[in-house]
Each structure stands twice: as structure tokens, then as C-alpha cells.
């Protein structure tokens, strides 16, 4: 894979223009490595954020913030450390976003005297439509299953949801999930197992 072809042109030109040859090589390698990492992780990270926040634009903002913070704070760290670090940042950002949203909702409710609930926001089916379509029958079945699964994951307690998504969607092992969640490995196992049980109960036997 020619990684340099996928890097932003300005970044490559700027890095290539550095004065020190050794430093330039290191910077280019780091940029390529980070590009590769982010490209690999970005879609799943977006889905994690989208399920947690139930809003496409908020999820995109959170993922971008997490990417930038990783580059700023940990870009020089070995690439094998990036995954748990990135997900730790992402989870913190999601948590901050949810807290801000709750505060905003309370203020709006107090100000208007109404009972506006952001949970009522329904996703736009056109906006969320899949781009790469499988066969129609499979697509229909998968869409129904995914819709039900999305709703069920949304109803999980926050920690169970985190453990489930980090392990199932992102594929982190127990230790990496514990690092990303800032808890013990035992807690991860418990949260994950309970999440699975809860999802099975919610989805029932008729889940396609």
C-alpha cells in the first residue's frame, strides 16, 4: 500500500521541507503511521460515538476531536499504544458531550418551561442509509436486525454499552478495553457479560 499517496498533500510537502533529514524521515513515518491508524479506526469509532450520542453530527465532531487530541498529545508515542489511548480519549469526549447535552436540556427546559427531551430525536433514515448495498433480501434482514440491535445497545447502561462496543465493534481485548474505560479487567468482563445478557433478553428469540 502506498501510504504517502493517501496523506494530505500539504502535510507531505511540509514534512518533506523540514531541515533535518533524519527528523524529516521520522516525521514522515509518524504521519504515515498515524494516517494508517486513523483510517483503520475511524468508521468504527464513528459508530461507537453515534450509538452513544444518537446524533450523526455530534458523533462526527467527537471523533474529530479525539483524532486531533491523539495527534497533539500522543502522536510521538509508539503506534501500538494508540488504540487504547484513542478510545480512552473518545470515551471521555462522548462523556463530556453527554454531560453538556444534559445541562443544555435542563437549561432549555427551565427556560421554556417545557419538557424537551433529546431522546425524541429520531435518526434521519435517508441520512443514515448505507452506501454499499448488499443483496436486497440480506440488506432488509440486516437493516431490521441492526435497527433492533442499535435500539437495544442504546438502552444499555453507559458502562455496559462502552464495554460491549469496545469489545464487539472495535475488537479490543479485555486489557485494552480496561485501559480505554479506565477500570479493572474484572469490571470489563462483568460489564461485557451483563451487556450480552441484557441484549439477548431485549432482542428475544425473534431477532433476525
Amino acid at each position, binding site marked *: 500500500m502506498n501510504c504517502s499517496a493517501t496523506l494530505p498533500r500539504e502535510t507531505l510537502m511540509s514534512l518533506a521541507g523540514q531541515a533535518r533529514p533524519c*527528523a524529516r524521515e521520522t516525521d514522515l513515518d509518524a504521519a504515515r503511521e498515524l494516517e494508517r491508524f486513523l483510517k483503520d479506526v475511524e468508521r468504527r469509532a464513528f459508530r461507537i460515538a453515534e450509538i452513544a450520542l444518537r446524533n450523526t453530527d455530534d458523533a462526527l465532531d467527537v471523533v474529530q476531536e479525539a483524532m486531533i487530541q491523539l495527534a497533539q498529545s500522543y502522536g510521538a508515542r509508539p503506534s501500538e499504544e494508540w488504540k487504547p489511548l484513542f478510545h480512552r480519549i473518545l470515551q471521555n469526549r462522548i462523556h463530556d458531550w453527554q454531560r453538556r447535552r444534559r445541562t443544555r436540556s435542563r437549561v432549555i427546559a427551565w427556560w421554556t418551561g417545557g419538557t424537551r427531551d433529546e431522546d425524541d430525536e429520531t435518526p434521519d433514515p435517508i441520512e443514515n442509509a448505507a452506501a454499499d448495498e448488499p443483496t436486497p433480501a440480506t440488506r432488509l434482514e440486516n437493516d431490521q436486525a441492526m435497527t433492533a440491535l442499535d435500539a437495544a445497545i442504546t438502552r444499555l447502561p453507559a458502562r455496559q454499552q462502552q464495554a460491549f462496543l469496545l469489545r464487539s465493534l472495535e475488537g479490543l481485548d479485555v486489557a485494552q478495553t480496561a485501559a480505554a474505560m479506565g477500570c479493572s479487567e474484572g469490571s470489563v468482563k462483568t460489564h461485557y457479560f451483563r451487556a450480552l445478557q441484557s441484549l439477548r433478553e431485549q432482542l428475544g428469540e425473534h431477532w433476525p
Partner: protein
Amino acid sequence: MSNEQPNMTESDAAFERRTRALLRDSADALDGRVRSRLTAARHAALAELEKRAARPRFRVPGAWLPAGVVAAAAVVAIAVWTAQPVGGPAAVVADATLMGEDAEILASNEGPDLYADDPDFYEWAGTDQSGGTG
């Protein structure tokens, strides 16, 4: 992954595989607008890396600053300690006395003519000190 959960049944494992496949498919099938935004986000992150790379490299990282201060203090302490005369305070006092005598001689009106009065004595004194035989 299933092996790490001791209470998981085969049915749980099948459910887990199904949910994982669905979630991954949903991540792979994002619409064009989202993919485009993610690409832009990635480029913004790489631009941050570029900014960081452009900063001077000789800055002392904050974490090393206390260690640097301690090392500098240790070097100064060793330099001061080794600069002190051997023998401690008594030797310092003796040296000070000798310096005082020298100053007294230099300040007196007696010049080099003093040594010219009895050169044999001084020659003998010099021989005695170096030879040590009396």
C-alpha cells in the same frame, strides 16, 4: 473473545458473533457524507501532527525539568566540595597564616638584599631541606 468469558454458552457465543458482524457491517457501510467528514477529520489530525513536528526539538520536556535541576545542583555541589583544600578547616587557617606572613614580608622595607647578607646560610638551608641529612 468468547474464551475470556467463563460463563458464556455456545448460544451466547453465536449471539456475540452475529452482533459483531452486524456492527462491523454497519461501520463499513457508512454513507458518503459521513465518510467524507471522517476523511476531513483525519486530515485535520494529521495537520496537528505536522504543527507539532514543526516545533523546535531542543525544548526540555516538562517531565525532565526537575531531574535536570537536581543534576545541575549535584554538579555544583561536587565542584564546591572538590575545590576545598584537603585537611579541613585547620589547614585553611594554616594557609591563611602563611599568606599573612608572606604579605608581611612583601610589605616590609627589606628587599632582596636581605638574602645577600648571608648567602651561605641560605644555600645550606636549601641543601638541608632537600637532602634531609642535616
